[in-house]
């Protein structure tokens, strides 16, 4: 074991956890992750919102720049910047204000004076191209923009006469021949349109280069619409970042959540995992709790020499140094940090920009970066 590097344990594999792990590992720490599922980030299509949150938030710009650089290096490029808000269309025919979005989603934003065709796929459940186009036309009017939306539905011969999900379609499209076939089917729809909007149907294995090739062959811009979960764009970004984390030397442990944190002399020394047969003990010098809110399991805190254990509450507070604190603002342990959705000030309307900011800061502090 490399003793010169700081051992950081990140609990949680959502946006906050991933950002924290990346920030810590890029700042020299040896990072281990414990996850149970990909969190809500992958469910939501991978867009980053900032509603209700102040742009004056310290570290916001630094964290967003870091996140953008990391995603670009991982092969899932994001578009957008800290001081911009962009509207992107969704399958419900509305527009959503985002700070950042995966570039394929970003490509779907409305441009004044443009013509857009929304393409549906016969049999794809939960998506109607004509309904989406009609509602987008109405929404764009309200925004005072001139964009013409029309709709068409294609039939993929292999997929006829049955109902399928975007995941089925994504699996089907992993075959290069099938990608080619899709190009042939959508090409005739392009005509004089500037943009083709497709529901997100490309799987997690499609690379940026292949998507660029697809756009080139189609003959106009192509934007992806985020669908109902599981959203393929979110999954793609998630899996891309997972691979990137592994490459960066982060050890990932999926499936068995942390059951307890062990405290000794005011420091957390280890996390206990509920693995089959025997509980696994992971020792670390810094611990980042980024467990989010969709998981039902809670983390116990045990103190050496004491019998009683307390449960980490669903809402937690952090201090200026991102350390988890109790009701009296006393830190749980000076080396336990909090990030993401579990922080009580994190309201839904804040979107996930705060997950990036808190994850980034916790990652830096856990790695021992001081300023």
């Amino acid at each position, binding site marked *: 074991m490399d003793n010169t590097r700081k051992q950081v344990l990140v609990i949680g594999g959502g946006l906050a956890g991933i950002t924290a792990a990346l920030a810590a590992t890029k700042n020299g720490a040896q990072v281990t992750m414990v996850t149970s599922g990909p969190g809500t980030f992958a469910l939501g299509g991978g867009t980053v919102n900032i509603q209700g949150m102040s742009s004056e938030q310290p570290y916001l710009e630094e964290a967003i720049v870091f996140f953008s650089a990391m995603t670009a290096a991982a092969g899932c490029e994001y578009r957008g910047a800290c001081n911009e808000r962009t509207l992107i269309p969704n399958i419900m025919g509305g527009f959503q204000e985002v700070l950042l979005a995966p570039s394929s989603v970003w490509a779907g934003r409305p441009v004044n004076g443009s013509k857009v065709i929304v393409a549906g796929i016969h049999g794809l459940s939960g998506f109607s191209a004509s309904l989406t186009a009609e509602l987008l036309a109405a929404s764009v009017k309200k925004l005072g923009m001139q964009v013409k939306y029309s709709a068409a539905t294609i039939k993929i011969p292999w997929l006829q006469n049955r109902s399928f999900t975007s995941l089925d379609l994504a699996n089907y499209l992993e075959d290069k021949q099938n990608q080619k076939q899709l190009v042939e089917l959508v090409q005739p729809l392009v005509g004089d349109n500037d943009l083709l909007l497709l529901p997100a149907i490309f799987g997690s294995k499609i690379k940026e280069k292949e998507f660029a090739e697809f756009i080139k062959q189609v003959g106009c811009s192509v934007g992806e619409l985020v669908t109902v979960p599981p959203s393929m764009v979110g999954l793609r970004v998630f899996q891309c970042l997972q691979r990137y984390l592994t490459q960066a030397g982060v050890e990932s442990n*999926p499936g*068995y959540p942390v059951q307890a944190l062990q405290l000794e002399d005011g420091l957390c020394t280890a996390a206990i995992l509920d693995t089959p047969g025997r509980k696994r003990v992971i020792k670390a010098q810094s611990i980042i709790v980024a467990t989010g809110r969709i998981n039902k399991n809670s983390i116990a805190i045990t103190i050496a020499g004491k019998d009683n254990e307390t449960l980490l509450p669903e809402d937690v507070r952090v201090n200026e140094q991102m350390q988890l604190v109790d009701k009296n603002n006393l830190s749980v342990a000076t080396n336990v940090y909090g990030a993401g959705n579990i922080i009580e000030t994190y309201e839904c309307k804040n979107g996930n920009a705060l997950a990036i900011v808190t994850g980034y800061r916790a990652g830096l502090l856990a790695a021992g970066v001081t300023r």
Partner: protein
Amino acid sequence: MEKEKLTIDYCLKCSYCNTVCPLLKVCPDYPGPKKLGSDIERFRREGLDCSLDWVDYCLGCGQCDLICPNQVNVSEYIAAAKVQQKKTGVKKIRDYLFARPALLGKMSTIVTPVSNCALKAAGPFMPLGGITAKRKLPAYTAKPLIGTDGSSRQNRERERILLFPGCFIKYNDSDIGAAAVKVLEKAGYAVEIAQTGCCGLPAASDKAEALADARNNILAMKDAVMKGWKIVTACTSCGHTLKSRYAGLFSEDEQLAKLAQLVAASTYDLGELLVALQEEGRLEQRQTNVFRKLAYHAPCHLKAQGIGKPWVKLLKSNPCLEIIDMDNGCCGMSGTYGFKKEKYDISMKIGQALFDGINECKPDMVITECATCRLQIQHGTKYKALHPVEVFAQIFCS
């Protein structure tokens, strides 16, 4: 409320399980783990007949359980439904035998050369028994697995390990077991070979047989675990079964349930134990002058143990080895699944991503802990597949 009932309500319908199912990826008509597992389970619990032939096609890889945000045991629900499935004709006989690898192994290793000739001769007739003719059944070994010679005083004083061989190492490839014994001895242990049978995983759909396997094994290991010995296995499927299945089987027999828990708590995967030794500084690897590029495939039942990828950690720390973690998901073999005539094509389709990955990587050889993963890799690629301990023993014990 019982824990079981609680967990099914924890299903969020997020569909993450469907995104990792290797079968759904190649077989879009398959209902997927969410529907077949936690969705339909509600009706099964109401006593409604929900028998679907599809449950028989689940590979039991357990990846759905691992990605679930709330640890819903999706694959367990499907496995339980499998038990209820009624089988007839040839499939019934075939699956009866496939559930009993130890019975076949015992009979076949009485006079091994004869059995291997018979195996070869039987090849063309396999389809009559519902077994694909496209694969060769693995040959049996004539070499019995031998533990540490306990006669010397020095060996008697060493810490003991009970090696759970599992059917493949016991009856088909005892060289892997011998390599494991050699490595463990070099690490300072005295190794005894457990007098156990099949772990019971192949009999998961045959409840009485699985229970008998578990009971016999627990009793065979009772003395050792009571003395505090560690049980070590080089097979990830055996290890997964010992750790996670035994403890839940004997809710009516308190004493046996306690023993089962002790067995589970005493069981170590070979790589898991060695990595722990290395981290404690008790395992010194040597550098060889031969550089080797090894493609590593992580078996599904290793992932299910929640111990990370110990062999990758162990071998990566040796500068003479380049370890490439394929990370291409399930190989598609799933024990005897890939041998079954009606499942052969699906099995190969699932394995294709891994085969492509290995071919692209061009390694010197492939390493993976699971015996049937190795059979699948050798069948689907031209590469030789070894257990990592075979490579490690060469470096560590030379």
